[in-house]
């Protein structure tokens, strides 16, 4: 392995040996404190306005949002959205306790399965961890109850997100993740709108390899 030779070459270029203990301790401190840098003012708003900014940014990036009063209203919102898109009412859902607690049986025509997504799944329903108002971005950390494939394989991804989890800037979402989850999850996706590509003649087309549609059911209560 070339580890030593690479480190030696770097130090030769930097004209020093390994960092002295005090400087190394300072850098360890910087890693532990992870100081924030300049954060754009645009998301520094009262919470209701942050929620509005989040919604505006999601829509700007070709996502869509339905706002509902409480978790009980989610099955209706999902069923209506799927019907409006001419999609079947069958989907694969994240095995998350908050989603499991939703009264899906209120809409008997919905066929709800739990687990990770397979290539054959047309629609997935994911649990949102946080929304970032700054750019209308969802934060979806992986966990047994929040599989990554739900964000990727289905043609249509529906994310159930509590409005109370919306923050202003990315930095606030990282702190929320550190506080509620602790160690860095295996995978953290920051998702801003549905999949797209501009590789053909530099012209935007939606629906490249990931979901063609990203719909957020925003739960106020």
């Amino acid at each position: 392995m070339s580890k030593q030779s690479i480190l030696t070459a770097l130090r030769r270029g930097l004209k020093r040996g390994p960092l002295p203990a005090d400087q190394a301790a300072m850098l360890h401190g910087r890693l532990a404190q992870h100081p924030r840098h300049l954060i754009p003012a645009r998301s520094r708003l009262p919470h209701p306005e942050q929620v509005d900014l989040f919604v505006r940014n999601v829509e700007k990036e070709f996502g869509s949002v339905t706002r509902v009063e409480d978790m009980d209203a989610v099955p209706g919102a999902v069923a209506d959205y799927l019907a409006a898109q001419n999609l079947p009412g069958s989907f694969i859902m994240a095995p998350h306790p908050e989603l499991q607690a939703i009264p899906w049986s209120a809409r008997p025509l919905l066929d709800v399965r739990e687990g990770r997504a397979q290539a054959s799944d047309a629609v997935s329903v994911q649990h949102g961890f946080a929304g970032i108002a700054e750019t209308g971005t969802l934060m979806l950390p992986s966990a047994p109850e929040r599989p990554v494939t739900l964000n990727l394989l289905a043609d249509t991804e529906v994310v159930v997100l509590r409005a109370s989890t919306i923050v202003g800037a990315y930095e606030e979402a990282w702190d929320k993740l550190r506080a509620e989850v602790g160690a860095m999850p295996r995978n953290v996706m920051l998702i801003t709108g549905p999949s797209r590509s501009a590789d053909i003649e530099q012209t935007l087309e939606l629906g490249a390899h990931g979901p063609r549609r990203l719909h957020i059911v925003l739960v106020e209560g």
Partner: protein
Amino acid sequence: MHIATSPAFKENAHAALANAGLQKALARSGPSFIARRASAVANLPEFEQLRDTARDIKNHALANLDFYLEAYEAKVLETGGKVHWCADAEEAREAVLSICQAAGARTVTKGKSMIGEEIAINDHLEKHGITPVETDLGEYIIQLRHELPSHIIAPAFHLNMEDWEEAFRKAHTDLPVDRQFNERRDVLIEARNKLRSKFLAADVGITGANFLVAETGSSIIVTNEGNGDLTQTLPRVHIVLASIEKCVPTLEDATSLLRVLARSATGQDFSVYTTFSTGARRPGDLDGPEEYHVILIDNGRSAMMGTEFQEMLRCIRCAACMNHCPVYGAVGGHAYGWVYPGPMGSVLTPGLIGVEKAGHLPNASTFCGKCESVCPVRIPLPKLMRHWREREFERHLTPAAVRANLALWGFFARRPSLYRLATRAAAFGMGLLGRKKGRFKSMPGASGWTDGRDLPAPEGDTFFARYAKAQRAGQVS
């Protein structure tokens, strides 16, 4: 291996100017990149300050890179991943191959990776019976056409709809020959369907990394298509290719860099998928790779440390410099002859493959300074190109005629009064000769200029002479 055609830049550029398809693509796409970045920047009042922040973060990371790389490695190990330190392209290719062989891999899906191009990993895998499949739409057609990308974030920048149709008809022979390609959407859907089965069948997924995070041991990829995520999520093994300068300290540092990356690149506020991968599948996880390997590649970076080119290691590969470059805009990416085109390539390529091969590139600049003015990490690209020109001159790689002319110019430039006399005589003479038409259609020794356009005739005197005259007349102080 990619044989660099950088030594033939002049011939490449001539061919590019005569390539109608390329010129059509450049005329269409160049202005839109510029407009999109401008609008993203206009929507973020703090953008200029954020560029300073981005520069400072990268400078801090580079000044302590040995420390941060070791901290990063420790975190990767802690989260169940492995780090393979590789001094050069050959070591990196071997490391990737042995992981693929150990996994019994037959096919490998790939996310877009410029370091992957740099080490020519696809050729190496193919040579050993493993099929690499590029999954980024632009990279996919580049692979079908056996080309290099012509742009670092838009690999198929040089292609038009007719090229897509031709390549797809040739490659996808199992599909009906009478199918229509009426719009871009038809191309996209065909690629999506074709690649879906590849994603599912692959044994190993290889991605690049926009950043590595020492705090958490994470690798970050930034994509719009979702292909990189399918590549790193579905196969049993995930391999990350990353050069050593990608390492930054914390999530906050990476976040600040991400704020300027997409805006500078595609003009988006944020890319669709910005994904942080940390180690292998955790207990209870229903998906994700069982093995996570990082190939940490030096390949010439450490040799730039401590030199005047260290600043180039700040580069976050956004492509703003080439999007705004008049030379790139005229000849496209392939003329540069290797993996990295445009201003960033003109600085990086001589460092990686040698100034004797790539000496033309830092000369292929008008020094208009646009590249530096849009660089999100404020790399002084014109200054760095000038350093390469100096090195080229010092090593006597500059052609004899250029050296002779520079020497002649230098003789006069060091003698101001003689210089003024000579330029005044030349301006007067040319003014007399060209008075009638006001321009020259041809000029001995200047055909490079006059072949393409007329040379305006001087009006009879130099600026200095006219200024002195005006001073004497009391018109200026």
